[in-house]
């Protein structure tokens, strides 16, 4: 539907100063990037070192940068929404524009900020934690990144070219179908998510294979770090849940562009099947978002309490149990859709049950901290902030799980407050804790604590000020996705307070970014590779790790092997000896993953604007690149021993 006060000049959106501002920023940023790369003659460097890399450490860095940029983008969306809602009857944003903004806010935060943040951590930490030299399929790893990247490009340009999607991040039929929402907007959503979804499935397959098959000798499953275990659970969820997203979005796309009747309201279509299948993916997705955070917290709690995690076996078991149960709760997202009571009861009980293994984890973290020698570094600060915040969010989740009560809460601000509390208090706090924790390993310097503390306090205070009033607003009847509200309902004060909180959070983000910029120059350098006196194998390597990770693969004998060696004064056993070195087998860089991403981008543009010739060209490109890869006989090489010796000596390890 053409937006009310927005119009088109060809494909470019016109009529709104915010959009002109975005146009200008995009143009300026692009020119600046091209200028800097040309002036410092860095095009070849960009291609050789980053665009063609298959190294998990670099791919992790690219995911991290993307996640932080997207946090800024979707955070800006949030500030715009809260500005519009600060007072009743404002017209800062019209209804159509508001719809586009909450849609992209949700979509970008979940799929283009949180998911890449998780993939960043997986790439940065998992191979190092298990004593491996890379992931199982480095080429596929690169493909996954570039699919994500080009999908992010697709969703981000929709704002200025063609129009953003506007049917919510869940894009329900029939609203999102071609009858009620014609035009490219929704197609952008569908194609971007299809493309990034394929990348995500690749990552799930990759990390399951890596962890099950590439652990260092002696590292049995029950001797693995808990973060790695959390990624096993997450990868299982990804592999089993994402195909449902691929299918449901494809079917909606086929409805929209081919006139099919899966989810229409005529000719037998059933929009409720969309909702059913969307949440078959959607529920496991939110567990995909939280389990890595749980893994991160386990690492941080034990490291900064200087104690082995309490109840390792129950931690593993609870991760797997949460994964299992999460497949059997999806209908709680549509209790009010009208299924019968037996259906709603089953899903209500299952949804409440999932709180039990979660509770086990919380208690285990607390028991680990009890009588530990706690150091309040930034990762630990974020972890301690997570515990009460997420617990509260989880409790409101159990309230929502009571199906009859949910008839009151559903799609009100009570729900909005709940999911922000678990996503921010759980996922985001976990990602930030992990960022401070692993940053030295990746970049070789620590993030400055002073600025980090400013960011931490602003963000935490801002969070509670923004979201706790929203529970009350929900109970007072305020619905979600409303672009404005009338005065006289008693909603004004709480909305205004909530907006203040949002801006305090924004300040927190600015401090976070400033911390990064400041620390690049002034941050304490990590000279030992082990700034936190860590427990797991990644801390036995220099920071940053050499491109082959381990010169000699370690032999592991127990949980927290690195810590145990240090306790016994045996840490030198993990220093490589020249006599043990062999040539190291490494994969070659390749430009094909980048080109494959580009080909999918072309397919995406083709379907968005229904220029099918372009989509066909894109598909042919995909096919050609896949065949070219198949015909490649030697996509690998060996690093000779003297080069390894040279590198290790320069790092002071030999």
């Amino acid at each position: 539907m053409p937006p009310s006060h927005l119009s088109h000049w060809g494909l470019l959106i016109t009529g709104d100063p915010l959009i002109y501002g975005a146009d200008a920023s995009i143009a300026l940023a692009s020119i600046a990037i091209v200028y800097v790369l040309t002036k410092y003659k860095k095009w070849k460097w960009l291609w050789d070192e980053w665009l063609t890399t298959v190294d998990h450490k670099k791919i992790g860095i690219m995911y991290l940068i993307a996640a932080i940029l997207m946090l800024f983008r979707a955070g800006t969306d949030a500030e715009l929404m809260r500005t519009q809602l600060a007072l009743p009857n404002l017209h800062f944003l019209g209804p159509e524009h508001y719809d586009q903004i909450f849609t992209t806010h949700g979509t970008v935060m979940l799929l283009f900020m949180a998911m890449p943040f998780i993939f960043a951590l997986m790439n940065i930490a998992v191979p190092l934690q298990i004593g491996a030299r890379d992931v199982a399929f480095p080429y596929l790893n690169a493909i996954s990144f570039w699919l994500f990247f080009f999908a992010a490009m697709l969703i981000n340009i929709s704002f200025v070219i063609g129009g953003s999607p506007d049917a919510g991040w869940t894009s329900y039929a029939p609203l999102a179908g071609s009858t009620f929402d014609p035009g490219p907007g929704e197609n952008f959503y569908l194609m971007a998510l299809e493309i990034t979804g394929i990348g995500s499935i690749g990552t799930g397959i990759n990390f399951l294979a890596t962890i099950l098959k590439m652990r260092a000798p002696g590292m049995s499953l029950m001797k693995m770090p808990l973060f790695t275990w959390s990624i096993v659970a997450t990868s299982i969820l990804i592999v089993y849940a994402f195909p449902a997203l691929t299918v449901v979005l494809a079917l909606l796309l086929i409805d929209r562009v081919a006139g099919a009747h899966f989810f229409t309201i005529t000719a037998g279509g059933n929009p409720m099947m969309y909702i059913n299948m969307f949440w078959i993916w959607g529920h496991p997705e939110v567990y995909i978002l939280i389990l890595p955070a749980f893994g991160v917290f386990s690492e941080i709690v034990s490291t900064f309490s200087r104690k082995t995690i309490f109840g390792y076996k129950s931690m593993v078991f609870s991760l797997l149990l949460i994964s299992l149960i999460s497949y059997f709760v999806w209908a709680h997202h549509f209790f009010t859709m009208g299924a019968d009571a037996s259906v709603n009861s089953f899903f209500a009980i299952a949804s409440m049950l999932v709180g039990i293994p979660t509770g086990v984890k919380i208690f285990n973290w607390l028991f680990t901290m009890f009588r530990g020698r706690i150091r309040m570094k930034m990762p630990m600060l974020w972890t301690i902030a997570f515990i009460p915040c997420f617990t509260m969010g989880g409790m409101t989740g159990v309230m929502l799980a009571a199906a009859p009560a949910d008839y009151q809460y559903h799609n009100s601000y009570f729900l909005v407050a709940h999911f922000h509390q678990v996503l921010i208090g759980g996922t985001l706090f976990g990602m930030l804790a992990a960022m401070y924790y692993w940053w030295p390993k990746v970049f070789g310097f620590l993030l400055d604590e002073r600025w980090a503390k400013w960011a931490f306090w602003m963000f935490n205070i801002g969070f509670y000020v923004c979201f706790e009033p929203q529970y009350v607003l929900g109970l007072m009847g305020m619905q979600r996705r409303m672009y404005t509200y009338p005065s006289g309902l008693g909603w004004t004060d709480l909305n205004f307070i909530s907006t203040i909180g949002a801006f305090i959070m924004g300040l927190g983000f600015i401090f976070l970014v400033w911390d990064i910029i400041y620390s690049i120059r002034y941050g304490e350098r990590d000279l030992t590779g082990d700034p936190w006196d860590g427990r797991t194998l990644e801390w036995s390597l220099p920071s940053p790790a050499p491109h082959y990770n381990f010169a000699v693969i370690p032999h592991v004998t127990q949980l927290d092997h690195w810590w145990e060696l240090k306790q016994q004064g045996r840490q030198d056993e993990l220093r490589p000896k020249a006599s043990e070195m062999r040539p190291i087998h490494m994969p070659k860089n390749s430009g094909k993953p980048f080109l494959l991403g580009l080909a999918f981008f072309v397919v995406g543009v083709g379907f968005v604007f229904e220029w099918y010739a372009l989509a066909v060209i894109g598909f042919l490109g995909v096919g050609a690149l896949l065949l070219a890869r198949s015909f490649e006989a030697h996509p690998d090489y060996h690093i000779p021993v003297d080069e390894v010796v040279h590198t290790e000596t320069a790092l002071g390890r030999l």
Partner: protein
Amino acid sequence: MSNDHDTPQITKTFHHEKFPWQGIFGYILSLALTAFSLWFGLEHAAQYGVILYVIMGLAIMQIFVQMFMFMHVTETDEGFPWQSLGLVSGLVFVAAIVIMSIWIMTFGAGVS
């Protein structure tokens, strides 16, 4: 990568065939199951529900025949056939998705 065993640990999940007996046997069995399914479904005068269960059962049997005889699903060169675990758990989720979707979507059963 180094290993932690002195000799390669190769379990007896591979068996060496001089003639593709497994494949032939699997093919004949699959043909028989398909033929029986066709006959029972089209010629036999049983109730609709009964036919449904029988042909579904035959389909599931054929899956197992093909998985073991064609795809060598339990073959592994080290210890544990993780792929079998993955497939079995996948089948559980697949059944859950299909059966529970049908259950959820048969609306109006309790609503007047």
